[in-house]
Each structure stands twice: as C-alpha cells, then as structure tokens.
C-alpha cells in the first residue's frame, strides 16, 4: 500500500450492497438464465410438439406422442436399455480398475511419488477426447488393430467395433474421474481407524469390507456420477468404435435435423435418468464430494 486515505469514505459500493450484488449478477444471469436456461426450456417445450408427416413442418400442439413412441417402440426402448447397460458396465469396470490403482497410489507408493502418479492419471484427461476415441479405433480395428495383432498368435481375434468396443473406450475415457475421488478418499482415511480394526482382530479383507469401503462409499458414488452420466449422453464414441451399435445420443443426433421434437424428447431421457440417479445418491453425501 502506498497511499492511505485520510478520511474513511466507505464508498458507493459499500453503502448499497444490494445494488452491488445486482451489478455482479446481471451479466452472468442474463447469459445463464436468459440464453442457456431459456434454450433448455424451449427444447423441453419442443419435445411436446410434433412434425407434420407430409410437410415436415413443426406442429405446435402439445402432445405426448413423441414420448409414447420412445417407450412403446421396442427399437427405441431397446436403445435406452442398451445405453443404460453400457453406462452401468463402464461404471463397474472403472471401479474395478480404479480401486487397486488408487490404493496403490495412496497406500503403497512412497509419498514423494504421489504427485507424479496423480499427474500420470490426470494427463490423459487433457489429451483431446476425440484423439482418445481415435486411439481406440487403432486399438480395436478388426484384423489390423493393435489388440488383434497382440491376440493373433493365440489364434484369437480382438473385440472389433461394437458393444464391447464402446464399453472399453468409454471406460478408458472416464477412468480418471473414478480414480481421483477414490484416491482423495483413501488419503483422507485415518491410519488409526485401520489400526483399531486390526487390533479388534479383523484381517485385511474384513477391514476393507467393514471399514474402508463404507468410508470410501461417497467417493465411489462421486466417481460413478461422472462415469455413469458421461457414458449416458455420449454418441461420438458409438460413431467411431461402435460399428452398427447405436446409443441414445445417436438417436438424438440422427433425428434432430428432420424431427427436432422427437430428438428433443429422446434427449430428455438421459437427463431424467441422471436426475433420478442423483436423487438416489443424494443421501450418501457424495454430492458434497465432487
């Protein structure tokens, strides 16, 4: 500080806190509420409109026709089930890979290596999403891919493009989101609690089940929110490594030009599923962990 005011002035901003708050909020609120929430609201409204089969024009009459079509046509609810199945599988696979990795990072590796290991987990998050999916195209390609090459001496072929390819690729994409919260949870885990468990006669397996897992549960849920919801909305991965397999996002993407109301209705489904999931896990306290 070079100069000090001689008389306390307070200033306009301090005398009118409400006005100052309004000044801070006006621009961001115009952007987020008027532009963004407005767009979402318009999209939701569109979901209840239809398209005239002959003219292709949007008919602005409220109807549930789009949702009826999604839930009664087996082709569409098949896609819903498949998409949820993929998201669940991806979440479980991420968990299976992340638990030992995070345990190694937090409990086995020397503390001075931890920042490096965290950086090693984080770096792929910064590598372009599209590049990572493309990398898996090179890995999964039938006959000429890396996995096929690796398995061919055993007389096996790789999974190729399709359901399994999507699951592997999405697991790859979202794995760091599962590792980091579990790692953070494990570093917070007090040693005294583990010692107490051992003193009371629990072996490692029992300590893991009865002490570590319950404490880690909110971290796991926090990670699963990412892996689950990011998988639900994805469509690029299916386009690149999915072969003929499509997910909910692909249905939206295919329909949005010709039938926006139907695409809008389909787009609400992953949102509703994620909101249901969030409501279900809310009580675990995981939402404060993100």
């Amino acid at each position, binding site marked *: 500080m070079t100069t000090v005011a001689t008389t306390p002035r307070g200033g306009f901003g301090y005398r009118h806190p409400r006005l100052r708050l309004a000044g801070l909020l006006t621009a961001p609120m115009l952007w987020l509420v008027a532009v963004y929430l407005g767009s979402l609201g318009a999209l939701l409204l569109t979901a209840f409109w239809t398209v005239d089969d002959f003219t292709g024009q949007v008919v602005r009459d409220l109807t549930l026709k789009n949702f009826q079509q999604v839930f009664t046509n087996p082709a569409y609810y098949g896609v819903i089930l498949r998409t949820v199945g993929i998201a669940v599988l991806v979440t479980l696979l991420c968990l299976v890979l992340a638990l030992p990795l995070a345990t190694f990072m937090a409990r086995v590796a020397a503390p001075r290596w931890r920042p490096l290991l965290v950086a090693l987990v984080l770096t792929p998050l910064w590598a372009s999403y599209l590049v990572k999916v493309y990398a898996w195209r090179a890995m999964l390609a039938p006959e000429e891919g890396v996995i096929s090459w690796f398995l061919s001496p055993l007389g096996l072929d790789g999974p190729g493009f399709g359901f399994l390819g999507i699951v592997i690729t999405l697991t790859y994409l979202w794995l760091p989101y599962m590792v980091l919260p579990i790692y953070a949870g494990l570093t917070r885990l007090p040693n005294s609690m583990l010692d107490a468990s051992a003193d009371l006669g629990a072996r490692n397996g029992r300590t893991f089940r009865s002490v570590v897992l319950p404490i880690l549960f909110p971290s796991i849920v926090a990670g699963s929110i990412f892996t689950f919801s990011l998988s639900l909305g994805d469509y690029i991965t299916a386009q690149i490594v999915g072969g003929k397999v499509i997910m909910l996002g692909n249905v939206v993407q295919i329909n*949005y030009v010709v039938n926006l109301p139907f695409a809008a209705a389909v787009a609400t489904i992953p949102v509703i599923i994620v909101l249901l999931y969030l409501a279900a896990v809310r009580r675990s306290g995981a939402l404060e962990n993100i």
Partner: protein
Amino acid sequence: MTLSRGTKAVLAVLAFIAFSFIYIPLGVILINSFSADKGLGWPPSGLTTQWWAKAIENDGVREALWTSIWVAAVATLVALVLGTLLSLALGRYRFFGRESISLVVVLPIALPGIVTGIALNNVFTTFLGGLTIYTLIIGHATFCIVVVYNNALARIRRLGGSVEEASADLGANAWQTFTRVTFPLMRSALVAGGVLAFGLSFDEIIVTTFTAGPGITTLPIWIYQNLFRPNQAPIVNVVAAALVIISILPIYIAQKLSSDDDRGAGVM
C-alpha cells in the same frame, strides 16, 4: 491395515496394468504418426517423419488450429469475466435463489453435451437467424463459466472476508478493494480456471458440432471430418499425436501453480 508384502506386490502389478491401459493407446497414437503406412494398420511396416512435415504444411490443419485457439481464447475471456462476477456474488452475499444459481452454473457440464448442443442450436437458428463463429463462442463460454467459477469461489471462501474488511476500514472503496486486494489474491486461482476453460473449449466437439456456423472448422471438427477419409489418415495421426504431446502443457502449468495453492490448483 498393514498391507502384507504379497498384497503390495499384487496392488503394484494391478496398478501397472491400469497405467498400461491408460498409456498404451496414447503410445500407439505417437508411433502411428511416424508410420510409413497410410492406414491404421499395426504394426507399422516402417517409420518416417514425412507425415509430420506434410501436416505442418497442411492449410486445413493450420486454419483449424487458429480457429480453435481464437474460439478458446475469447470463450475463456468471457468465462473469466462472468465466472469471477458470479463467484464474488455467491461467495460474499447471502440472497434468495443463491442455491438455484449455483445449480444453473453447473448445468452446462452436468447435462450431456448433446442436450446443451441441440438446445442452443434450436434457439440460435430460430432467433439469431443462423450459426456463426459467435454462436460457437457463446456455446463454449456457457460451459466454461463453471470451471472459472469453481476455482474462483474456492479461493474466495478460503480468503474469508477479513482482508476486504481491513481494506474498507482503511478507506478503500469497493473498486479499490477489488483491484488492490481481492483480485491479486484471486489471480492464481483465475489462471488455473482460465487454463482449464481454455483446455475444455479447445478440446470440445459435441457442443461445437451443433453451434458452429457452416465452414467454421475447429481442430476437433477437422479431425472428425477427416477421421473416416482413408487418404487423410496419416495427417490425422500426426494431429492426434501433436495433441497428445501438447496435453502435457496444462498439467505442467497446474503443477507450477499448485506450489502456491494447496489444492493442486483445482485441476479437476
């Protein structure tokens, strides 16, 4: 829980497998960029640097790179301003609707990209008469606000109000307090948030697809357009490899920043 030697060895092996899973595909990308073949075939029949030379001279790639940098820079700037304003409002005031606002900020990255994408696309084409580079920037800034906001809010909470009160007691007005006290203390958090926002925008493909005007090609869009063209595969491989190498940069910056920040500069 004292882990036995055996358990530790098993965990080390599993961690090694997980790290291999993470890094082998990235390694394949790097090697493929030097492949003498024209496809994604593995293993490469030979190595060459000719594709790197060709990619650097490629006008499409260069233009896409500049578009990406330009869009990410403007979107980051907008996000920095709006995110800082929001964090000051929510970090320093209690008011009706505060919780709802903090939810609205997160929504653009919490919802699937395709939902944000078609929602904005619908409104832009209906009310703004079409898509341009500005609609793309609006789309990107919308999901960048949250990362700036998160970093800035965490810092404001940690600072507490006492330094600002001291500044006011010494006679500074609100603007002086902001420019001389609050902002300098927030600076490293804003840099971290800005780096994150830039990275997020630079990498984004889904919202980009739905909000970019015709002919506007960012780098991810360029990759996407050329992904399925067999004769472009060598150039795509080089661009992909370059992006993998560049991704080390923000991690490095974040590690530098974390020296004055106890939370790893909020890299997530």
